């Protein structure tokens, strides 16, 4: 009776979290075994493309360090361009990981379980790309250590009223928190890999990283609370980090930058582009790694709903910026929003941003769009292109035409700018491929717990 009742219950559920009948054994096999397989040809080609791109990134970095920021397209007045755009874009993408693993844990959203490891890894690698730029875009990167408050022989301290100092603390705290949160969640899985692998050498490697975890009840007792606390701390942290990143612009006096809408609008934008990147990576990953049974349409649909929500907040952000510019009657503000952005030389990027960030997410109102995997992938790529354009519009258009018309000037990127942008994307991809290959993409421990819980819950339901 239990079997048929279980079956009946499943049809009633909207979309199952775990498809098909599974128990710990099958979960272990599907989630952990591919770690031992030899790398498939698909993975290898992608990996080598990634390594090529990383080479391009290293070339861009070497040229920038050797000759100077002049190799980029930056000039006066547009002193910030690709360097800061990429930084904000990557840190924005990173935030989705923490959102899924921390905020959804606090909201006890069950669908987070199978995608939280995946998203956290993406956070880590995105923050690594983001962390590259605050040092690389410095004029004298070899003095970057002055940004940290150490007692120096010239007895002078950093200046803590500057948003860039807050950035230094925010990004380093965020990276540390994400790393520790990710590793804590990974320890039980590493122990499973240590015990499940056949070859002694792989057992030794995973054994080292599992630092002797044996799943003792006394440890689980502290583990649950520690994991919950880290999630609890990571939630305000992720909101504060992107608020501080938005303060890099909001605390200036430039028209188009110093609007108070920036913090919520940037955080929503970050979550929006973060979910899009999760989707972009997840759709191909779930197909090649055969994880369709754990990352079901329910997860993709839930994510597209979140993207719809945050997309609307971003759209609201644009609307409010334009309204305040008009309402405030400040001639500099209205010039930036209604002349420079809409009709200036960079209007093409402005309209591309409008299309990708506002028009594309509206399609998620319709179930066929939320459930069509191929469409979701295309939409997620477009959204990330749109978010990059949004940062470009914010940074470059406000700088290249501001208060005094005599110093208005055009900005043109150079090959080094593009090599850094596509180089970081390739490096991000390489890291992600390594993660997919050598670590379980889905948190096997939490999934077994979820399966047990679902079944247990269902059995109670059936009994009553």
């Amino acid at each position, binding site marked *: 009776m239990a079997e048929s009742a279980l079956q009946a219950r499943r049809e009633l559920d909207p979309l199952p979290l775990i498809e098909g009948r599974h128990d710990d054994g099958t979960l272990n096999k599907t989630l952990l075994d591919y770690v031992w397989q030899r790398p498939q040809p698909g993975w290898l080609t992608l990996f080598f493309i990634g390594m090529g791109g990383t080479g391009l990134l290293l070339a861009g970095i070497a040229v920038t360090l050797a000759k100077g920021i002049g190799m980029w397209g930056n000039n006066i007045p547009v002193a910030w361009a690709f360097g800061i755009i990429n930084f904000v874009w990557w840190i924005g993408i990173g935030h989705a990981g923490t959102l899924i693993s921390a905020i959804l844990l606090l909201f006890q959203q069950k669908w987070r379980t199978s995608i939280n490891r995946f998203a956290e890894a993406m956070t880590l690698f995105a923050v690594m790309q983001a962390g590259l730029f605050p040092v690389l875009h410095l004029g004298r990167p070899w003095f970057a250590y002055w940004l940290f408050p*150490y*007692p*120096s*022989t*010239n*007895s*002078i301290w950093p200046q803590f009223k500057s948003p860039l100092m807050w950035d230094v603390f925010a990004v380093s705290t965020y990276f540390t928190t994400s790393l520790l949160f990710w590793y804590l969640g990974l320890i039980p899985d590493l122990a499973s890999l*240590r015990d499940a692998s056949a070859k002694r050498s792989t*057992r*030794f490697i995973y*054994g080292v990283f599992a*630092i*002797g975890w044996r799943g003792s009840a006394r440890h689980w007792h502290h583990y649950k609370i520690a994991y919950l606390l880290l999630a609890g701390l990571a939630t305000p942290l992720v909101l504060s980090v992107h608020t501080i990143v938005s303060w890099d612009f909001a605390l200036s006096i430039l028209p188009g930058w110093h609007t108070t809408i920036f913090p919520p609008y940037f955080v929503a934008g970050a979550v929006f582009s973060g979910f899009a990147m999760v989707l972009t990576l997840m759709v191909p990953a779930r197909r090649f790694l055969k994880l369709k049974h754990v990352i079901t349409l329910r997860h993709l649909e839930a994510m597209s709903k979140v993207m719809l929500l945050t997309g609307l907040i971003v759209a609201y952000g644009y609307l409010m910026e334009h309204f305040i510019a008009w309402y405030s009657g400040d001639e500099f503000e209205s010039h930036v929003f209604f002349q420079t952005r809409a009709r200036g030389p960079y209007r093409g990027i402005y309209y591309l941003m409008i299309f990708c960030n506002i028009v594309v997410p509206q399609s998620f109102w319709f179930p066929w769009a939320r459930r069509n995997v191929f469409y979701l992938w295309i939409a997620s790529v477009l959204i990330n292109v749109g978010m990059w354009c949004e940062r470009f519009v914010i940074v470059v258009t406000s700088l290249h035409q501001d208060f005094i018309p005599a110093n208005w000037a055009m900005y043109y990127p150079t090959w080094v700018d593009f090599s850094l942008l596509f180089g970081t994307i390739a490096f991000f991809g390489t890291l992600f491929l390594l993660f997919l290959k050598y670590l379980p993409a889905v948190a096997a421990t939490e999934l077994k717990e979820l399966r047990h819980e679902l079944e247990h819950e269902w059995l109670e339901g059936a009994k009553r």
Partner: protein
Amino acid sequence: MSALFKPGANTSFRVTLVVLALLLGGGLVAGPMIYVRSPYFTQQQDPVDQPVQFDHRHHVGDEGIDCRYCHSLVEKAPNAGVPPTSVCLNCHEQIWNKSPKLAPVRESYFADRPIVWNKVNKLPHFVYFNHSIHLKQGVGCVTCHGRIDEMALVEKAQPLTMGWCLECHRNPERFLRPREEITSMTFRPRDQLALGRALKDQYHVHTRVSCTTCHR
């Protein structure tokens, strides 16, 4: 019945972690901070050899020649200046005029080529120190250059780092002395703070800590 790791692995794991932490924290952070304060970097107490064996102990100590006789620019120019060869020959034309030790001096004078001295108290090129104002406000030579009259070869006495200069710029009364005692090597007031405060008002000393005082 072989476990994956041997019992000894526990201690070796813990030791490696501790060593890593020390190496990372100490090596990367504390190491450079100690190095830049050590004499290796500040080049203090490191006598610099010169093309001519000029011995301050003899000239300042025994003969009691005032600093400003040779370093004549000190009261009217930013740099104290090293004496032209003609000043050396004011005395050494008569005495020691055959000594081989002074051959480079005589040769420089007659060939009209300057003696290439090695600088001891070096400041970075972006720091603009002015001797004349410091002497005017009552800062003695010994405060920054140390007991020159006891040095065979001149060496750097103080680190001359920005932090060191700021100590005096922040409360000068700990170092001021009457203008007549500027070149005295052994001046020791009974109560330096009282004297300092009195001189501070008398000489209208208002030291500035704004950056363009020294960096322009």
